[in-house]
């Protein structure tokens, strides 16, 4: 199911929003309770979903729909405030809003505060749910504060005994198994080529126990038992030698899983160093990170303020394009009024929003490629008429600097196949960017500068969780023995310092503590110049050298050296296997997971728009030369990125790639 198809079916009255949202709820329920994917931090109660959906139905019936997203089931990442449904993505559960109250109140141990009786909601959630009329299915799970690439640092279920929380699991192996039980031997997500009646039938017969409509109940029961055994970690429980517990990637793990499994047609998430693109590559979905500052970050829990970008994960590039245009309509208007990046009282609640949109013409330049929104999307799939060579004017750069020696052969061949596909099918011009124009050491340097900057800003942004207002408040005396309290660093502390350190030591997960400590270290006066400033310089250099490779749309120069977009793989790795405790089975060093982001981080540092598209394994001539029988070809993503503000162009090229 795609957004376009759903919108078309709503308007032709073949299905209602209520039916679709109920189906989404069933899928989400199945994912959580039968497949144990842990993709949701919180599921919205069914009656509230249906109430929202029926309002959408009424609007569509009366012809005053709020747009293509009206009635579409969506999810939002846990670090984005969504009024009363919001739960914090961390152990700082003391500020959990209680879902039943109309006011957004929070309490500390000692009292509570009402924020002027207004529900605290992020700008993006308001835009999506209130302005566009989408129906919220749930809040998706994530790595604590967005720290992690594997979805295993989920802080939500941490209890007092320090029991490890359950990780979020990749749905793709289970989806492959489920598909084998279906008559239509097709994957459920990216191939939306079944006819409408197939989907209508599916929606009507959906139940929470069997939303996929599998006829053979015994097979389903067997599969679910296998899931149970895997989760429990029992040996030799698998029917085949496949290993089904894989990481979905992070930190927007739940967002990717929900989209991949089908319960959400549009999952809003955040991307800091690759948090949307990596999980989307590993779950065979489309992950889109717009230019930094496109959407207001107001109401989004800050991790790395200078990199955090709101984006989304969808099943197809077409869905991404619809979401981009629906959510961005207003911000585009604001962008054109010349308030770019300057102090202005009338600017949005996020002072850094639209900082990089210096040339508003840039957007207009690329806008003409679109057909009118309704035409474009409503009849897609039936009357899709595309030009012979839609990318004839586009120059696609293949930067050799990104071709690191660690790249597995299968990903290398996927990369070249994708490039060839853009050239042959789209008519794009391929330009190889040599080492001399963009040196590979910069790409490696990007990773380390990212972690210096990210940890520094994280340690700063997280210092508000001291347990006095936010964060857990524990009794330090219960945490430390008398011996501890009277020896070592504790005895030099004042009562307040001891309280705060107890709260933070208890409240933050391991990865968070590591990053906060690392960040504190690089900001200290003796390391600020050697680490933080060096990283900032490296960042500026990377950003500038990438920016210089792009053709400026303003001058329209026909410089042969310059390109419009660049194509690189999203990840150089495949999802690691997880055990039932959520440990990465192959890695023991927590910093090793950093390497998963090596291809996404240089792009994040520059604030460039980037979209990760799953490689179409059938279309491409790639051999599955890997063990385990899991079709890894479905876990490869290709990234298209371009200069800041060229979001439309990125989506347009991505559409061809898919």
């Amino acid at each position, binding site marked *: 199911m795609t957004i376009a198809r759903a919108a078309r079916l709503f308007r032709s009255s073949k299905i209602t929003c209520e039916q679709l949202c109920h189906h989404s709820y069933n899928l989400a329920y199945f994912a959580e309770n039968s497949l144990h994917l842990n993709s949701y931090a919180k599921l919205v109660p069914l009656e509230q979903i249906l109430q929202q959906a029926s309002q959408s139905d009424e609007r569509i019936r009366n012809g005053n729909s709020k747009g293509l997203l009206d009635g579409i089931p969506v999810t939002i990442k846990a*670090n*984005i*405030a969504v009024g009363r449904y919001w739960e914090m993505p961390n152990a700082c559960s003391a*500020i959990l809003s209680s879902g039943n109250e109309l006011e957004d109140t929070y309490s*500390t*141990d*000692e*009292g*509570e*505060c009402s*924020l002027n009786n207004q529900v*605290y909601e*992020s700008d993006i959630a308001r835009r999506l749910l209130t302005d566009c009329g989408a129906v919220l299915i749930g809040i998706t799970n994530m790595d604590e504060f967005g720290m992690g690439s594997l979805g295993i640092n989920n802080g939500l279920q941490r209890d007092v005994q320090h029991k490890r929380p359950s990780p979020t699991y990749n749905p793709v192996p289970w989806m492959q198994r489920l598909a084998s039980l279906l008559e239509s031997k097709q994957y459920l997500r990216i191939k939306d080529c079944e006819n409408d009646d197939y989907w209508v039938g599916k929606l009507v017969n959906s139940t929470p126990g069997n939303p996929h409509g599998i006829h053979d109940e015994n097979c389903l029961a067997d599969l679910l038992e296998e899931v149970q055994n895997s989760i429990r970690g029992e040996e030799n429980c698998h029917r085949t030698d496949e290993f089904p517990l894989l990481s979905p990637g992070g930190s927007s793990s739940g967002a990717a899983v929900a989209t991949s499994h089908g319960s959400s047609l549009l999952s809003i998430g955040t991307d800091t160093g690759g948090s949307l693109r990596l999980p989307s590559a590993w779950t065979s979905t489309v992950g889109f990170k717009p230019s930094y500052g496109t959407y207001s*970050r*107001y*109401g*989004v*829990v*800050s991790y*790395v*303020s*200078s990199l955090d970008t709101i984006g989304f994960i969808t099943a197809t590039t077409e869905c991404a394009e619809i979401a981009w245009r629906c959510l961005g309509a207003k911000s585009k208007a604001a962008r054109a009024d*010349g308030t770019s*990046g*300057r*102090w*202005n*009282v009338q*600017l949005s*609640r*996020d*002072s*850094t929003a639209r*900082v990089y949109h210096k040339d508003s013409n840039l957007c207009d330049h690329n806008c003409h490629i679109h057909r009118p929104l309704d035409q474009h999307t409503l009849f897609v799939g039936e009357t899709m008429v595309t030009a012979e060579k839609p990318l004839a004017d586009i120059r696609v750069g293949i930067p050799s600097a990104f071709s690191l020696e660690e790249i597995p052969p299968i990903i290398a061949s996927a990369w070249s196949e994708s490039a060839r596909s853009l050239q042959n099918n789209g008519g794009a011009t391929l330009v190889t960017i040599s080492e001399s124009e963009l040196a590979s050491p910069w790409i490696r340097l990007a990773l380390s500068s990212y972690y210096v900057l990210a940890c*520094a*800003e994280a*340690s*700063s942004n*997280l*210092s*508000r*969780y*001291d347990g*006095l*207002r*936010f964060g857990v408040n524990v009794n330090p*005396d219960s945490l430390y023995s008398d011996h501890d309290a009277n020896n070592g660093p504790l005895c*030099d502390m*004042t*009562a*307040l*310092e001891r*309280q*705060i350190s107890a709260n933070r030591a208890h409240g933050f997960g391991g990865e968070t503590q590591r990053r906060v400590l690392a960040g*504190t270290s690089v*900001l*200290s*006066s003796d390391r*600020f110049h050697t680490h*933080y400033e060096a990283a900032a310089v490296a960042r500026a250099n990377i950003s500038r050298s990438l920016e210089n490779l792009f053709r400026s749309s303003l001058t329209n120069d026909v410089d042969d050296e310059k390109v419009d977009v660049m194509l690189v793989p999203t990840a150089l790795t495949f999802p690691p296997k997880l055990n039932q405790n959520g440990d990465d089975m192959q890695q023991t060093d927590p910093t090793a997971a950093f390497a998963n982001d090596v291809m996404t981080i240089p792009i994040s540092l520059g604030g460039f728009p980037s979209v990760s598209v799953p490689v179409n394994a059938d279309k491409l001539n790639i051999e599955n030369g890997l063990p385990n029988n899991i079709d890894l070809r479905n876990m490869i993503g290709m990234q298209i990125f371009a200069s800041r503000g060229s979001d439309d162009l990125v989506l347009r090229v991505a559409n061809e790639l898919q």
Partner: protein
Amino acid sequence: MFWSKFIVHHRHCRRSPSPSIIVQCYCYCRFASSSVSSIATSTSPTPTLRYDRDSGIIFLENDSDTSSSKTFATPPSTRLPLYQTVIGIEIHAQLMVPTKLFSSAPTRHRRIHDGLNSDHYDDGSTPNENVHAIDIAYPGTLPQPISTSTINASLLSAIVLNCNNIHTISRFERKHYFYGDLPQGYQITQQRWPIARDGLVVFLPHVATRSNAKLIVDGAGAGEGGDDDGVPIRRRGMRNRRGVQENNHPDESDNDVDERNCQTRELIESLSSKSSSTSSPPDPVQLRIERIQIEQDTGRTIVGSSSSSSSPVSHYSYVDHNRTGCALIEIVSHPDLRSAHEAAGAVSRIRKLLQMANVCDGKMEEGSLRCDLNVSIAPIDIDDVIGGDEESDRSAGGAQNTRMVLPPNTGHRVEVKNLNSIRQIIAATEYEALRQSKLAQLGTPTGRETRTLVVGSGGMADETVCIRAKGDAVDYRFMPEPDLPPLILDEETLGCTLDEYVDKLRTELGESPEDAASRLVQDYGLTMDVAGVITGDTRAILLFEETVKFAKNEYLLLKNCDDDDIDGDENMLSTLAANWLCNDLFALAKTSTSANEGNIQSTVSLLDYSSIDGQRLGGLIAMVAHGSLTSSMAKKVLNIMFVEGGRDHPRDIATANGWQVVSDKKTLIQLCNSVVFDPKNASQLEQYKTGEERKRWKIEKYFVGKIMAASKGNAHPELMKEALSTVLEKACIDS
């Protein structure tokens, strides 16, 4: 509403571990004899360290005359200058803007901006009432763009502090530390890229209060508590400023030093006498401002009582977030100050300047303006002193130059935080001067420390206590603020260039006190001293000019003549107005302030306590000038006007009380006749007629008293005497 409660250790109760210091008196410190014997040498009287607040010099002197420590009667031979204090200040001033720096929450200044009466403004707003989610660092909130009023207030501060560099681009940074009153865990401030740099303040050092000093008489005293006199500053300040610009080689004056081998004793004598002669008015001093930065205020911590005896924690503190996130400017000075009275004078002056620009209400006791001092001591090299004799003499032109460089071997600076009054500034400097000198004498000079002033109570003197020593200095981990773009002030954001914008603000600011003073001298023929007193008060200038205007009108009516006819009287009227304003009205206001609050340091204007306007005061002046009220009557009328308020004309008040000068000749003669020819006084009249000269004079005095009593004190004294002599002469002739 909520309280954020947290535990604090009784940090302030930890006394510094230096028990050998015994503070005996507010102004000097005595060595404990055992530890000091080494430097006390063989002189039998106990040597004492004494701090001179005017010169900033710490003397070692023999305490031969313990009873009169204040007098400088001690033989000069026993006074040895040891150290010079070197002081820099940091002032945190809360801007009077309606909203907080980065959120839309109202501040306590909101009411003023809404046009509500500021007289009745009430700071007792409920705790945590003016709080936005941003202020308490609610996760996901981001700072909102800074408001225009904050920009304007910051620029105005830079203007009044004469900043040479106001930056088109300034940036915000985060300063990290954990405390209960800092919800974000960091303060958004400006560090490396402040909004303005390189300012200059010229001020008069504080002058110790003499209770009976009259304002007019003692112009240099210029009001208690260092309300500095702006007038001489301007004149002399010009010269000083030139001194700064020429001062590229501040060492030159030191290089001139001759190795004059003059008698150390003589020198010390001259130094002592100089420093002790406090009667001459001090000369203006200039203080360089390093930078002005915009930053957030913290919450207000309220110390709660201990919850229960069994509780393991000492007590809880509570935080009121109404102040959290309010806009502050921090003014950082160079260490150009050399004494406690200079520090006090500089703070008073800056406070006044900010008040005049309407940037900060300057209420130190409410924390609207807080001051941190950086105090260190430099050893006084006798040789240097010989060569640079004029160094101690601030009036010398070269004096300013030597301030620009830190004296050699200046010790570690000690920061004394959060001083809330001029008195505390003086007390803290003095305490630090003596404490540091003492430690230096012992060979264990102080390290870099942060201290706080504990105000003495129950007969205990004030003292500073250590809150952070060098070892556990806080690393603030400054980091560029990633949530805020740079603050750019250019055509795009201001609508005109920054220079044009600053000029516009400067014009709106109106005349400076200095300009106003010279105008008053020019236009009204006042003396500089008087003009200085008037312009030293924000509201007095306007009141004075209105008073003169109304006084002139009424005077014309009383005299029943034209404008031209009273040409010569105009100066008389303005002098009268100035005297009545500065002496009588200020005195009344001051009594009422001290009755109300006991602290006049922080009021914006003394006249805030008075409801008397120019019309009523002018009426009074006219009546005095015309002679229809004697000055003692006028004082009574003024008192009534001040106490009762209202809108009654002084003439009506006088009439209602029967205070009416009788100056009509006929009436006076009638009055005299009735008394002189009163049968009761027949014997006196007879004695007058017959008596000799001496007797006559006595009788005349008797009649004056009787007539005055008969007129209930209303008779015009001189005219009445004239009338009496006429009557008596006539009586003699008639008989």
